[in-house]
C-alpha cells in the first residue's frame, strides 16, 4: 500500500519549502505574464508565486536541458616551450537533486519514454542518467481532458502514474498525494504532511470524473503497421505536411522528443575555456540530417514529418514497445499553423486498414 498524504492549498508553500531542503532544486510551474500567457517550470524559492496549471513547456529540461555542457576543457602553455600545450578536461555531468512539482501525467510519461533510449539501450547516457537518478517527479493528475490532449490514445490518461514518483490529485479541500515509487514514498513519508488515506476515495472519484470527461479514444493498435505501410507513399505525407513551416515548435515542446546536436564552442586557451555542448535539435529542421557533403536524406518537409510521425508511432514502438508520444497535445496547440498529429496518425491508420483490406480482397 502506498503512502497517502493530504495537503491543503495553503499548505503547498510549506510543502515546497520541505522539497527544497538539502539543496534540492524544485521545479514548479510559473506563470509568465504576457498578452499570450505561458507557464514554464522554474526553480522555486521561498515566497515565489507558482501555478498549478498545465505548463506550456514540459519539464523535460529537468533531465535533458535545452543546452548542457558535456565537457569543458582548458589548454595551458608551457612557458619554456610555447609549442607544448597541457590539456585539462572536465566531463562530469551537470546534475543536481531535482524535484519536478506539479507536472502532468503526460509529462511524467515523457520521462518513461526518454528512459528507454537513454537508459535501457545498449549505451547508457551518463549525463541523462546522472540527472534522472537525482530526479523525483510529483505529478498532478488532470481534472479533465481538453481539445488538444489525447493522452488516453497513447496508453496514458489523466491520472496515469507512469513516470511519476508521487501522484497528486485535487479534491474539494486540497490535494491528495499518493506515492507511486519507493523514492516517492520516502520523500512523502518525510514531508510531514497530514495523512490522506481518508480522502483517497475522493481522489479516486476525481480521477474517475476526469477519465469520464474524455472523448473515446480510437484504437491505435494497428498504427505502427499502418504508418510503416504508408512510409513510401510520399503523396500522403506531402498532403499532410503542406502547411508545415519546418520550425521546431512541435518537437521542442514535446515531452518525449530527444533529438540533439553537439557543437564545440570557445577555445581551450580563452578565459572561459572550450566547451562541448549538447543542445536540443529538431528533426523538423532540414539541418538535422544534412550531411557534411551537403547531401540531405530528408530534404523536404514531408520526409521530415514522415520521420517524426513514424518515429513516434512506428519505429519507436517497434524498438521499445510503446509510443514515443504521451498525448500531451502541445505540438498541436503550439503549432503556428495548427498541424495536428492526431489527424495524420488516424489518416495513416485508415489508409493502412484500407490497403490491408485491398490486399485481402486480392
Amino acid at each position, binding site marked *: 500500500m502506498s503512502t497517502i498524504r493530504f495537503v491543503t492549498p495553503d499548505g503547498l508553500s510549506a510543502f515546497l519549502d520541505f522539497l527544497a531542503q538539502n539543496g534540492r532544486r524544485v521545479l514548479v510551474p510559473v506563470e509568465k505574464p504576457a498578452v499570450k500567457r505561458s507557464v514554464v517550470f522554474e526553480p522555486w524559492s521561498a515566497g515565489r508565486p507558482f501555478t498549478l496549471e498545465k505548463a506550456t513547456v514540459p519539464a523535460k529540461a529537468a533531465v535533458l536541458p535545452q543546452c548542457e555542457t558535456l565537457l569543458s576543457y582548458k589548454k595551458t602553455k608551457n612557458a619554456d616551450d610555447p609549442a607544448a600545450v597541457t590539456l585539462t578536461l572536465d566531463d562530469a555531468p551537470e546534475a543536481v537533486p531535482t524535484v519536478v512539482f506539479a507536472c502532468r501525467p503526460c509529462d511524467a510519461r515523457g520521462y518513461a519514454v526518454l528512459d528507454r533510449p537513454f537508459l535501457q539501450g545498449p549505451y547508457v547516457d551518463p549525463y541523462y542518467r546522472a540527472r534522472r537518478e537525482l530526479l523525483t517527479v510529483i505529478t498532478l493528475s488532470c481534472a479533465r481532458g481538453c481539445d488538444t490532449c489525447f493522452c488516453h490514445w497513447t496508453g496514458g490518461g489523466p491520472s496515469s502514474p507512469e513516470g511519476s514518483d508521487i501522484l497528486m490529485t485535487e479534491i474539494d479541500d486540497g490535494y491528495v498525494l499518493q506515492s507511486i515509487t519507493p523514492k516517492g514514498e520516502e520523500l512523502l513519508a518525510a514531508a510531514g504532511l497530514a495523512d490522506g488515506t481518508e480522502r483517497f476515495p475522493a481522489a479516486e472519484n476525481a480521477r474517475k470524473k476526469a477519465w469520464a470527461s474524455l*472523448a473515446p479514444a480510437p484504437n491505435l493498435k494497428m498504427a505502427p503497421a499502418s504508418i510503416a505501410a504508408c512510409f513510401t507513399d510520399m503523396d500522403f505525407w506531402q498532403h499532410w505536411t503542406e502547411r508545415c513551416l519546418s*520550425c521546431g515548435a512541435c518537437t521542442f515542446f514535446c515531452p518525449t522528443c530527444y533529438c540533439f546536436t553537439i557543437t564545440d564552442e570557445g577555445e581551450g586557451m580563452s578565459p572561459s575555456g572550450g566547451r562541448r555542448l549538447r543542445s536540443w535539435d529538431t528533426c523538423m529542421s532540414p539541418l538535422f540530417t544534412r550531411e557534411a557533403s551537403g547531401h540531405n536524406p530528408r530534404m523536404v518537409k514531408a520526409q521530415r514529418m514522415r520521420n517524426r510521425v513514424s518515429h513516434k508511432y512506428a519505429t519507436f514502438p517497434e524498438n521499445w514497445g510503446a509510443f514515443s508520444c504521451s498525448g500531451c497535445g502541445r505540438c498541436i496547440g503550439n503549432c503556428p499553423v495548427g498541424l495536428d498529429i492526431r489527424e495524420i496518425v488516424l489518416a495513416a491508420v485508415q489508409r493502412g486498414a484500407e490497403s490491408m483490406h485491398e490486399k485481402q480482397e486480392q
Partner: protein
Amino acid sequence: MSVLDGKELRIVGFLCNWCSYGGADTAGVARATQPTDLRIIRVPCSGRVDPLFIIKALFNGADGVLVSGCHPRDCHYSSGNFYARRRLEVLKQFLPVLGIDDRRFAYTWVSASEGQRWQHVVTQFTKQIHDLGPAPRLEDAEPLLKVADMALTALRPLGTGQHAALDALKAAIRAKLPELECIIGWQQGRDAAHTVPLFMRTPEDVDKLVWGPFNVCNPAVYLPSFKGKKVGVVVKGCDSRSVVELLQENLIAREDVTVFSLPCEGTLDMARVDQELGRYTTIDNVAYDAAHVIITADGVAHSFCMADCAQGKCYGCATPSAVLADERLGTPVEVTPSDVTPPELALLDAMTLKERLSFWHGQMQRCLRCYACRNACPMCVCRDYCISDSRDPHWMTQEASAKEKLFFQTIHALHLAGRCTGCGECQRACPVGIPILALRQQIARAVAQLFDGYKPGLHPEDVPPLLGYEVVEQNIHERDWK
C-alpha cells in the same frame, strides 16, 4: 582579455582600410595623443561592417563601438559608405529598444589626411563612453515582465466579416483553378474556432475555404517555396503587403502569382481567445453578429467583441484591402493611415533603458529557440541556411542563454530592416508569447522616419531602403563631435 581596471573601458573600432585607418595612422604619425581604450579592427570598407558585428560586440562586453569610414563621396569603392550610412543609422535608432544606450555606438567619416579629426573623434568618443561608464549587461539585469496594454482604438471599425463576398471569391478561385498549381487560403482547423492554411487544388478544396476573424495565418509565407510555379493566394490586406514585399525583392515573380482578396474587417488575437476559452473539450457552436463572435465551448458561451479582441496589428491597420490584387472582391475599404504606436512598442517606449534590458532578459529566458518566429516569417527567405545555426559563418552558439536568444531576435530584426511589413506572424507563432514584434516595429519606425515614411510592401517597384542609398540623405545627418 581584460581591460585595464579603472583605467580603460572596452571600445571597439571598425575602420575602413582606405580612409579612417589611414586617418588613424596620420594621427599617429603626427604624435596626436589619444586615449588608449580603442581597439581597431581593420575592414576593407565601412560597407563591410555588418551591424551584427556591432551588436555582437555590445552584447559581449564592449562598452562602446565606433565605426569610421571614408567621407560620403570619397569611398574607395564608390558607394560602400552610402550603404553603411543607412544601415548604421538604422542600427543606431534600433539599439535603445534593446535597452542599449545609443550613445555607446557612433559612426563617422574620417579621411586618411584627417589625423587631427581622428584624434578629436577618438578623444570625444572615449570621453563619452567613460561618462556613460561600463555598459550594463543583459545577464546582470533583474528580469522584468510587463504586459502590453491592449485597450486600443482601431483606425476603422473592426467586424466579423460575415457579409464578405465569400461565394464570389470561391467562384473566382474555381475559375482560375485550372491555370494554377494551387491557391492558398484558410480552412477550419481542429474546431470551428481555429483555422489553418488551405491549399486548394480541386473544386472540393475550394468548398473548404473560410473567411472571417479566425483567418490569422499569413499565407504569403508559402509563396517563395512555390517559386517558378503558377500559384494563387487569398490575402487579407496585411498579407498582401508581404506579397508585395516579396515582389519588391524579386523573391517571387509577379506573373507567377495570382492574388485574390477580400477586404478584411480584422482578425482575432487567438492567444486571448484561447486564454478566455481555457481547457475545453468541444466547441459546440460559433456564432457571429456584426461586431462579435460568440463561441460556445462545453456548453458555455464566450463572447468576443472584435473591437476588444483583435490582433494588435489590426488596430493600426491602414490597408484592410489588399494593396495589390488580381481578383479583388467586395468593396475596397479606404483607411487614412495614421502613425499609431503599436501596443508592444508602446510598452517598451514607456520604459527606461535599464527596464528594457531587464525586460528582454526576463522575456528571452523562456525562449526555447524553436524558431517558430523565424519560420512563420514570410520575409525569412534564408530558410535552410539561417546564420543562427551555421558554423561558417559562426555568429551564434547553441547556448541557451538569454543573450544568445536575444541575439537571434536581433539578427532577425536587423535582417528585416526596411522589409518587415509588420504582419506579426513571428509573435503570433511564439508558443511562449514573447513580444518579439516590438523589435521589428522599432526598426520599421526608424526606417519610416529615416526614409520619408517608407513602409515596406506597398509598391512592388520600390527598392527596399537598405538596398539603396541617396548621395545626400535628407534625414541622416552627421552628428557633430563638439
